[in-house]
């Protein structure tokens, strides 16, 4: 065993027991420093012959490299162990539950309104809004419901004064829009919003509810156009396989007037308890705008004609989801609202 081996042996023995940065630094100084053991080996050079010197020098350098690498490797191992100890101390129970992501929800009535808005925006309609406190003129008179008309009993509306009331439908927004364009341009709008009728609240009646009305006025708007539009709406709301059926009805502001039934989404028209064994469910009222309404809104009925329809949002939600009581919509129970989140 020569001096090289002895030195190496001693180095590794110390390296093995070195556990701190400080010990390693000292070890490095003791062997690889200016006055370290390996540097000391170079002192022997001057006693060697010319021919021996390069070989010896190479040997010292090789040793230096070897020790230096061993030192670094040991240092890295130490650091790794330290980090692992630290991470071990950070151990958690991964089976404990995570923080809840608490999302809220859009009210089901808003969701339905928005989906209908989206359908009609896609068909080129604009969404028009208007005041909920309306004049008798806009709510009734301009819609062909003059005073003393049987369909406008004082009993049925919330009046604020003899000429002002809570709107009973969103039709006044249609009147306002038609007047805005001055009877000169086509109109293609839907009007969503809250409306009020003087009904006692029970499972199927509400003194306040949401309505969406639609109106198209142009030179050639026909009842066939109305039919196609309503079919599209019924299919959007109740499924692509649905068909519709139009039955004669009466509204003062449209003529012809129709009630619109959709083929039952439950039994597909075969007859079940939901459709009361008729195969159809009534969903909305519609018709061709009455000449008097067009005239009062500034249109010449010889030049322009149009269709209008009105749909109750609560009714759609109740049919679509089988909700049994209209009052649920106004209770705002979070458990109820959450059910319709998509």
């Amino acid at each position, binding site marked *: 065993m020569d001096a090289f081996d002895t030195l190496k042996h001693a180095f590794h023995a110390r390296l093995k027991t070195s556990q701190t940065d400080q010990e390693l630094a000292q070890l490095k100084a003791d062997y690889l420093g200016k006055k370290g053991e390996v540097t000391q080996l170079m002192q022997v050079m001057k006693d060697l012959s010319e021919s021996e010197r390069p070989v010896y020098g190479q040997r010292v350098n090789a040793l230096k490299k070897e020790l230096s690498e061993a030192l670094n490797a040991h240092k890295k191992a130490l650091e790794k162990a330290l980090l692992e100890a630290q991470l071990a101390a950070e151990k958690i129970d991964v089976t404990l539950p995570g923080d809840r992501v608490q999302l809220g929800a859009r009210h089901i009535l808003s969701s339905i309104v928005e989906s209908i808005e989206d359908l009609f925006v896609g068909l080129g309609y604009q969404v028009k809004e208007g005041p909920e406190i309306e004049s008798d003129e806009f709510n009734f008179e301009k819609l062909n419901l003059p005073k003393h008309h*049987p369909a406008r009993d004082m009993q049925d509306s919330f009046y604020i004064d003899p000429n002002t009331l809570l709107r009973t439908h969103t039709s006044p927004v249609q009147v306002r829009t038609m007047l805005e364009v001055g009877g000169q341009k086509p109109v293609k709008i839907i009007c969503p919003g809250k409306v009020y009728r003087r009904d006692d609240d029970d499972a199927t009646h509400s003194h306040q509810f949401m309505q969406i009305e639609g109106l198209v006025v142009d030179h050639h708007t026909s009842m066939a156009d109305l039919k196609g539009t309503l079919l*599209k709406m019924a299919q959007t709301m109740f499924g692509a396989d649905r068909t519709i059926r139009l039955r004669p009805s009466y509204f003062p502001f449209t003529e012809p007037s129709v009630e619109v039934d959709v083929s039952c989404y439950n039994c597909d028209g075969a007859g079940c308890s939901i459709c009361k064994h008729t195969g159809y469910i009534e969903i909305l009222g519609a018709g061709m705008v009455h000449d008097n309404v067009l005239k009062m809104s500034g249109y010449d009925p010889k030049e322009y004609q149009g269709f209008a329809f009105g749909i109750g949002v609560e009714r759609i939600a109740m049919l679509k989801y089988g909700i049994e009581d209209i009052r649920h919509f106004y209770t705002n129970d979070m458990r109820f609202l959450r059910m319709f989140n998509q």
Partner: protein
Amino acid sequence: MNVSMKWLSDYIQSHIDPNDLAEKISLHAQEVADVRPLYAAEGLVLGRVESTEAIPDSKNKRCVVTVNGTQRTIVCGAPNVAPGQDVIVADIGATLPGDVTIQKATINGIESAGMIVSLSELGIDKKYHQESGIHVVNDPHHDASFGLDDTVVEIELTPNRMDLMSMLGVAYEVSAIYEVPLTLPEVTVKEVAKVNPYTITSDTPKCMAYYGRVIENVTVKDSPEWLKNRLIAAGIRPINTIVDVTNYIMIDLGQPLHAFDSDTIGTQAIRVKTAETDTTFQTLDGQTRALKSGDILITDGKRPIALGGVMGGLDTEVTQSTTTIFLESAIFEDRQIGQTSRRLDLRSEASLRYERGIAHDRAILALNKAVTMIQALSGGEILKGIAEHVQTPPTPWTVSLQTSRVNQLLGTTLSDAEIKALLERLQLTVKPTKETLEVTIPPRRLDLHTDQDLIEEVGRLYGYNHLDIRLPSTQTQGYLTDHQKRRRAIKSHLEGLGFFESITYSLTHPDLERGFVSREPTAVLRPLSTDQQTLKQTVVPGLLEVLSYHHARQMDDAKIYELRTLYWEEEIETLGIAMSGTSTHSSWKPPVPVDFYSIKGLVQHVLAMFNVSAEFVASRLEAMHPHQTAEIRIAGQVCGFVGKVHPETASQYDLKDIYVAELYITRLAAMSDRHITYTPVTKMQSVRRDLALLVDKTIPAGVVLSTIKSSNVPYLVDAEIFDVYTGSPLLDSEKSLAIRVAFNDANQTFKTEDIDALMDQLLTHLKNEHAVKLRT
């Protein structure tokens, strides 16, 4: 309108299935509410009681009954069963209402083959009869119209189709829908030589026509079975032959009639006039009615005998002992009948028909048919002639219809001939001219006055289900406005942050709003309840009710919002937010309760969506915490408030620690600047410096921050509070604010001396404004 199929067959002889009729009526005319058998029973037969025999120790009787020529024994418990009666027998196998099936039974040891039934057992409501025992049939030989197997189709009438308030009107419609012949009624009156002595005059234009006939020596009695059955089918209670005939004719032809006991009329000169205010009249129900000017009165020239079109008088009522009838068939003004009947709460089948409008050309037909029927049922002689007063004789009118307009409105391609044929099915006279179809409308169709009215007739008879399916060709751009899009965005953001949208009633009780607003509320005139008398001026109480509902159900972690209109002088769109519970959501980690700053953060987020900068000014609202409430102001205008609900207010809802905010979206939208400007992202690093200030405790941090932001110190781009401290070793009057400020310039990096100079400038400004000290 209840349509008896048997009755309908008087006019339409073609066989029509009631269910098919219901479907066709609903597709072409009016909504059908119900199709039902008149007697909800099957297996009924007529029988004659031959003999009855008491059964010992029982109230039952052993009856021998002949059914279809064969005798059988039936045990019957009704006290009124007697030999010689014609009765209705529920045969073996018959079904009665309430899932009753008749089976052969042994009663009191006697085998009983069937059951003799009462009207109640047949499902006839007590309002149509007063019988307690079995039903005794009074005319078993009129079997053709007996009615045991009649079916009723109940049609719901819309106000425009009052022509369908008569069987004849329905028959016109059925004839048009099915394209089958209609047999119109024909009447031959057998008069005696004695002349009707009555004269009629009228002082009022509200009586368009008045006709009267007299029939002497009648015997008032019980109506035959077929007549009673038809009235019951129509929903009318049978009384006696005279009353029943007037009701029958009203249903049959739509013309209300009134029968007077002629002997009780003081004169034979009927005079129609309008009432004077503050007079009274005793109607036949025994009530004394206060009259008003305008009510139509039928008088005998001296005293009133009937309230025209509404109700007859008690004095002149037909009784069992009446022998001479004066029968009125008149046409009164619709509006006046409506007013009088509504005011006196006397709405009847007759007043309803007058009010909605009756056919003006059936008054004489109705009168003649009625006296003929009375004669047939009650005997008597019809005096010669009709007493009459005619103000406005019924005349048809003409409507011009253009084929092009029909097709344009319906989206059809019908020819002139097709349209003509459709209208002729309704028995309208159609005369084609060069450009139009001239359609003559008879007075029975008061709803047809314009071409649009006729287009509806064409459309519904043609069938709406035969119309094409198209979409409007109108080329328009569909879009949501910026505001509509932003409204949806606000909702989505809040929902993403855990909030549930609420929709509440707009009507409320003003007391609930006290302390949140101090505006004069708008009240509705006739509220349905005191809780719903005024329109909302604040969103918060409604949200508190929702939170209270959840609290009562152990859901205290409730976060809700509502975007709704408030009704001030103008309508203002408002966002209300309410929250309680915790802002973290873990089942096992310590909860962090929500506080003022949780909700203020939300408010600031919404404000940022409008790109407006707001001031939060400590303020007071009675219903809110006096020291944790801020008013939100933008450019000096109040745009809402945010804070903690006053514990006393909260406790009224059984709540505590509730944070709410109200933001006036209409105002925010008006001030919103959504203009987007691009500036390149700076490549230079910002320099940050911390500043520890001692300031007077009463100076709000926000004020210090805005002083910094408005200091005009160059390159100052941001200032943020990162610590607030009060307490030892500071003086009671002091607080410490730690503020981090940032400097940036796109064109340079700063040297330390530059920043020192800028900080000195800032500090000097702060010292001048708020007498701050640097904390050392």
